[in-house]
């Protein structure tokens, strides 16, 4: 395996001279061109425009008007924005941890060859079909103060249900959970695929050697599915950073701004309540971009080292 892998990128020894052949290079560029063109025109180019917008204030009709100097950026150094960053951090943490751990806790039992597992796996992936707003509408109903089946169940066992969207620590949890519900279903797909690719011989050998249960999982199975786990962590982080619908529909940033995340703040300043503060929204957008890059750097830099690619 090792030699095969070593040969993978460097090519057969004979073609060393031909390694940087212009034809290969041209082919490579041609293959990348559609994606790069699309991304360049519709993501990178507007990003530069957003940078430009962040240095300007907009008039009441949404046109960038006077130069605003650093005022859009100095607005980022307020306590309020600090709270927004904190909410974003907590939200992302919850969504990533629960959004990967929960599907894992489901995928592992589901990977066993027991009757009904295939059906169950399909069922558990269904929430992925919901859009963010559809999921929010349904969970709003599920946790409605007056009609919630969840509350009814809790009362049945003697627990007083908290105010899911009305009490401060719970509101953030609720919108994060609505996100986990959708994202976790996709991760179940990904982790299930990873588990299906696990080599049974290796697991069997480990079991013969005496590894069981938790130890088997942590030292044998987990490393083997680490590419899938890594992928799930990276994509869940990005989804969590950009989750908007849940906050909009369920709490609208409340109570009193305690579920206001970064992307909600951006959308709010750009489009809600008759606002058209594209300057401030762009500045905050750049912050979000930096946060994303920082997290990705951490993940690729530190976490990926522990990933075992076959």
């Amino acid at each position: 395996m090792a030699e095969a892998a070593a040969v993978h990128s460097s090519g057969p020894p004979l073609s060393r001279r031909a390694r940087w052949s212009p034809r290969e290079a041209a082919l490579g560029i041609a293959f990348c061109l559609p994606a790069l063109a699309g991304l360049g025109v519709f993501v990178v180019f507007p990003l530069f425009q957003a940078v430009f917008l962040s240095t300007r204030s907009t008039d009441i009709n949404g046109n960038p008007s006077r130069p605003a100097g650093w005022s859009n950026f100095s607005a980022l150094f307020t306590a309020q924005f600090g709270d927004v960053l904190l909410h974003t951090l907590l939200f992302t943490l919850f969504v990533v941890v629960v959004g990967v751990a929960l599907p894992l806790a489901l995928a592992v039992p589901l990977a066993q060859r027991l009757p009904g597992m295939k059906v169950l796996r399909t069922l558990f992936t269904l929430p992925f079909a919901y859009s963010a707003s559809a999921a929010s509408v349904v969970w709003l109903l599920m946790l409605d103060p007056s009609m919630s089946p969840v509350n009814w169940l809790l009362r049945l066992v003697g627990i007083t249900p908290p105010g899911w969207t009305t009490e401060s620590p719970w509101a953030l949890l609720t919108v994060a959970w609505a996100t986990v519900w959708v994202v976790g279903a996709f991760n179940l797909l990904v982790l299930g695929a990873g588990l299906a690719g696990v080599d049974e011989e290796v697991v069997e050998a480990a079991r013969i050697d005496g590894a069981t249960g938790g130890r088997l999982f942590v030292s044998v199975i987990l490393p083997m599915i680490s590419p899938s786990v890594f992928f799930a962590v990276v994509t869940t982080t990005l989804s969590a950073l950009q989750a908007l619908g849940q906050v909009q529909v369920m709490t609208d940033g409340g109570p009193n701004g305690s579920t206001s995340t970064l992307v909600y703040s951006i959308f709010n300043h750009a489009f809600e309540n008759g606002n058209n503060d594209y300057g401030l929204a762009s500045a905050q957008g750049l912050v979000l971009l930096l946060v994303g890059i920082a997290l990705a750097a951490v993940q690729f830099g530190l976490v990926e080292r522990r990933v075992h690619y076959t």
Partner: protein
Amino acid sequence: MTLLREVTLPRTDGPSEPVTLRKVHTTVDRSLRQVIGALALALAAVSAAGCSAATGSGGSSSGANSTAAPAASALDGKGEVDVSFWHAMTGTNGQELQTLVDQFNKAHAGKIKVTLNFKGTYDDALAAYKNASPSQRPDLIQMYDIGTRYMIDSKSIIPMQSFIDTDKYSVADIQPNIAGYYTVDGKLYSMPFNTSMPLLYLNKEAFEKAGLDPDKPPTTLDEIMADAKKIKATKGETVSYGFGASLYGWFTEQWDALGDVTTCNQDNGRTGRATQADIDNPTSEKLLQWWQQMVDQGLAEKLDSNTTNGDNAFGSGTVAMSLESTGSLGGFVQSAAQAKHPFTVGTGFFPKVSASDAGGPIIGGASLWTVNTGNSAKERASWELVKFLADQKTQVAWHTATGYFPISKGALDDPADKAWVARKPQFQTAITQLQNTKLSYATQGCSVGVMPDMRKDVENAEQAVVLQGKDVKQSLAAAQKTADAQIAAYNAKLG
């Protein structure tokens, strides 16, 4: 670059890789540098283009177009004129609007064709409007009440007054209390269309069980508290709370108007441009203290500003009293019949904060704006549609189908309308409430460009007080500070 190289090494392969990579980089460096240089130049050009493109964003004011309203002759010889109408009506309201527009199109076949374009929420419609270039704006747009000042300041519309003056159109039939909201400096800027009023809703069975008379509903907040206490003390009540309503900013605006309080200076922005908010006033303070006490004493259900939750609270029979607009009546009656413990819906006047309050509620909702597109035929056609929608007969149909309050005075005297109201006595409450209201600056409501933001600031204060247990005065003062800053920023943009 160093980090990348180290990171990718363990991932790809064995020992031969590092050598390969380094060698690769040195041989390709020269051509790479050329490529990178070219890319950098391209990027610079692109960002320069991006900057100039960004300045030309949509929504520039068409101040060049005159705001004089075209006369009827503008339609002559133009064939069939297309009118695009942006709206935010959903559910049965939207269906009814489509029906009315179909009627209009039939009556004006070959001359005017109106196309409805649903634009999501009022917020979405406003965002779409602002982002549209002048050539892509609709001919007619429905905009919520709190967007009024912005629409005027945008200089992109033709005031209704222009059409009224050109045609010598009689406004005698329009309810003055309703038109007052959209009138600034004696000029009517937009035609009111769908207006609703706030009401108190009550669960008649719950009232009776507690020994209260559902036909004598409470009229002040203190009376609500007393009634809620009685309901709480009654054994065998099917409701869990005496009271429950959404922390909706619109309600607070109503309470302030009832208390004859202006919520922004310059007479609610009606005699001059408003520069300051007056959110932290005694009426609002009293109101929030009351609400905090109600929740703390278990008399009111803890709800946030989401009106869906508030509606569910009443419709499911969880609370005995609630606040909502006249339009919700139909839905409530339907839910009440299907609730676990079915009940009858009763209505009362929107409660006052203090018994001595002498003001009245603000008529809110949305209105129709004719956009200054520069195309006189379309502008004229839009006005024809507006006249049709404001017409007495149309208003009767609109009222009876949606529950929105008719803007036409004559509509209330129409036999079909009267018969409908007789079948639904709850609507009489709204009518009486309106007729008892005197038009004043307070009941005209605050007119300021950042009204939607101001409403959200008030909601934040309410949430802070009721849901987070914060101090009333502090929360209202904080909201006022925020609102003042928003108003100042808005006014600065105009200068």
